[in-house]
């Protein structure tokens, strides 16, 4: 009975105290854990934004820029950070190669530790996900190559707000993202690329010459696309007062036009039915000194006009890749197959070839240029096949014909020291043509596709193609290949030059592929019609002399370009021409 009368009040208070302690403790832990989970969610999105921004900058400008961009995007997207020290990014300087040692640098900002990794090699913890103690992750084909990947790891430590009372002082979370560069679907057309990597005056306009990159009509979207001029030179050879782009002499102009409305005050005009405006295109230079016309990117002297618009940063190296991919597709440009001859242009081991990334479309595209070189072979190989016949003096064909020669409806190997087509002489060949050596045209030379075919090629094994002022040359629907040692000397005047690329076949839109390193001289003509891609990646293209301009749809890629003597070089790419890169990103880890 005495037991039944004992009070439980003390036990209730004790139980209440214990319950309250547990309840408050659990609530405190719940609040702090929720905060840490919110951190984790936020941090993941921060690293996503940082990695995508960083990889774009890395592939366009270099590893240092990629690191800086990544850290800057961490700073702007993290609520309690105002800035991040980017000085560690200098360790990322230099071009990225797949063999380069991975650079990973960390920086502490506030309660965060941020690590940037570039390139991200296949076995890096960020790729295998060992960083978060997961089962090692296999690579997949879409993971790309290390130099096109950039990783960001972010570790945040949050001090507990309430839970310290139960010994839970802080919590740490780690997240990471790896982003990869991919090719986008909006590749703008290019008007002009000069490929010299280090030179000065690589685009030189003097003596009243003009380079005008016209806008391009985008029929699909019913709009104009801005004209685009690109100089790959970093300007490291520039000294004194000359820049990568140099405009000198009164009346000299370099200009890129585009759709009206850019607000630069250029002259308005109508282009193919669309409102266009001078200066609304883009001029981009890799060398420092942009935006604006400053050394070493740009110089103006002797009364030349400032480039219009002002040059802007290129941010990436373009290389000759787009042409090689389209017409000479290889899976490995650093160790290409041997064409089997030593005479030819040796096009696959020439300057800068090593910078061309593997062609992505080897399953559907082919090395058409290599195949053509292999098919034609050197002069010592004679005729490429039995469909060809020789044109040479010892076989009764004059190398200095006169009068109007009846059309030759056959494939021909012209084996004259110099085929002289004099004034008043007219030669028409309806077939494929191989020139072993020189041809000089003061009369008329016309080359058409073989009967029943829609496209053609003309092959220069060596020698010079020259044209007098009154000469007339017409390459209709033809791709002209010029081996190393070949060159063109096309004097301007009252004559004409009609040179149109095929519109179909292996060389669609390609008017000229030259592996020559000799200067290629072009001039204004009374009748000038150039259509297609003029690819001279190892040669200086020199364009001079005034003449009537009916040139359209031409796209120029050269080692260097000089325009002078009052010449006006208007460049507008054909619809099927080469396109600029379009860098996009995806998240792969």
């Amino acid at each position: 009975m005495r037991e039944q009368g004992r009070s439980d009040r003390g036990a209730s208070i004790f139980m209440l105290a214990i319950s309250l302690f547990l309840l408050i403790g659990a609530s405190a832990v719940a609040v702090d854990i929720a905060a840490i989970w919110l951190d984790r969610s936020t941090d993941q999105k921060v690293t996503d934004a940082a990695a995508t921004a960083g990889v774009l900058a890395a592939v366009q400008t270099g590893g240092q820029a990629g690191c800086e961009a990544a850290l800057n995007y961490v700073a702007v997207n993290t609520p309690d950070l105002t800035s991040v020290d980017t000085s560690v990014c200098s360790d990322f300087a230099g071009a990225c190669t797949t063999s380069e040692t991975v650079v990973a640098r960390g920086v502490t900002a506030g309660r965060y530790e941020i690590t940037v990794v570039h390139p991200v090699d296949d076995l890096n913890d960020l790729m295998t996900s060992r960083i978060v103690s997961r089962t090692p992750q296999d690579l997949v084909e879409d993971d790309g190559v290390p130099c096109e990947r950039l990783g960001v790891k972010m570790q945040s430590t949050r001090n507990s707000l309430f839970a310290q009372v139960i010994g839970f002082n802080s919590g740490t979370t780690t997240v990471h993202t790896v982003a990869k560069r991919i090719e986008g679907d909006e590749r703008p057309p290019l008007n002009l690329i000069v490929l010299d990597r280090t030179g000065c005056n690589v685009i030189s306009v003097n003596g009243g010459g003009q380079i005008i990159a016209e806008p391009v009509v985008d029929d699909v979207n019913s709009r104009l696309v801005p004209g685009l001029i690109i100089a790959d030179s970093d300007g490291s050879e520039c000294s004194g007062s000359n820049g990568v782009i140099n405009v000198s002499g009164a009346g000299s102009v370099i200009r890129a036009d585009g759709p009206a409305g850019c607000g630069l005050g250029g002259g308005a005009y109508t282009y193919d039915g669309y409102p266009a405006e001078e200066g609304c295109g883009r001029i981009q230079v890799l060398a420092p000194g942009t935006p604006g016309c400053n050394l070493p990117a740009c110089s103006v002297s002797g009364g030349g006009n400032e480039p219009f618009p002002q040059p802007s940063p290129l941010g990436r190296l373009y290389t000759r890749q787009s042409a090689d991919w389209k017409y000479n597709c290889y899976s490995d440009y650093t160790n290409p197959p041997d064409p089997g001859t030593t005479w030819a242009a040796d096009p696959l081991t020439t300057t800068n070839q090593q910078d061309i990334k593997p062609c992505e479309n080897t399953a559907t595209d082919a090395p058409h240029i290599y195949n053509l070189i292999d098919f034609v072979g050197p002069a010592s190989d004679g005729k490429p096949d039995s469909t060809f016949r020789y044109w040479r003096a010892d076989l009764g064909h004059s190398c200095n014909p006169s009068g109007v020669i009846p059309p030759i409806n056959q494939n021909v190997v012209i084996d004259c020291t110099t085929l002289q087509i004099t004034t008043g002489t007219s030669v028409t060949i309806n077939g494929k043509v191989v020139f072993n050596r020189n041809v000089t045209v003061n009369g008329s030379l016309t080359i058409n596709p073989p009967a029943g075919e829609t496209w053609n090629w003309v092959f220069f094994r060596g020698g010079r193609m020259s044209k007098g002022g009154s000469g007339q040359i017409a390459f209709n629907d033809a791709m002209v290949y010029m081996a190393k040692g070949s060159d063109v000397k096309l004097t301007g005047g009252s004559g004409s030059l009609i040179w149109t690329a095929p519109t179909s076949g292996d060389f669609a839109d390609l008017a000229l592929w030259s592996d020559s390193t000799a200067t290629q001289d072009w001039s204004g003509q009374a009748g000038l019609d150039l259509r297609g891609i003029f690819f001279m990646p190892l040669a200086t293209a020199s364009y001079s002399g005034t003449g009537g301009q009916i040139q359209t749809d031409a796209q120029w890629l050269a080692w260097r370009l000089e325009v002078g003597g009052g010449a006006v070089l208007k460049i507008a790419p054909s619809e099927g021409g080469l396109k600029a890169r379009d860098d996009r990103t995806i998240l792969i880890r």
Partner: protein
Amino acid sequence: MAFIFSLLVMLLVGVVTSAIAFGQKNSIENAAREASRYAATLPGAIDATWFATVRNVAREAAQGNLDPGVDGQYICVAHINSGLRQVEDGGVLSPPESGMCYPDGLTESRVQIETRRVTEINAAFFSVDVTLRAPATARYERAE
């Protein structure tokens, strides 16, 4: 005893409303990030249609937290390269105008999204309104 009970109620209600606020913050933050990533690769002219598309992505990702009737609802979408932004504030949509959503010190072509809403932290006997804000910046990847 009554005092302890009051404390307990305050604590429980406070924890619940704080948890709701955490969830709302997470939602509008997720909305801002999703919309910024979407906008970074969205093609087309930067016009009212472009802004509306991005804004709808943010709204859908917010799972009701950025609907027009939500207290303090605010969505700002800015395309920095074109210099335009558009704001929806309390369900009222302004026309596209010059400006950014917030200064960020960057220079390259990029997009900004800022989402906001107001939430109430309630402790049974008193409450306080808190404005939740989530900014997101992403590099614009389309050709300029």
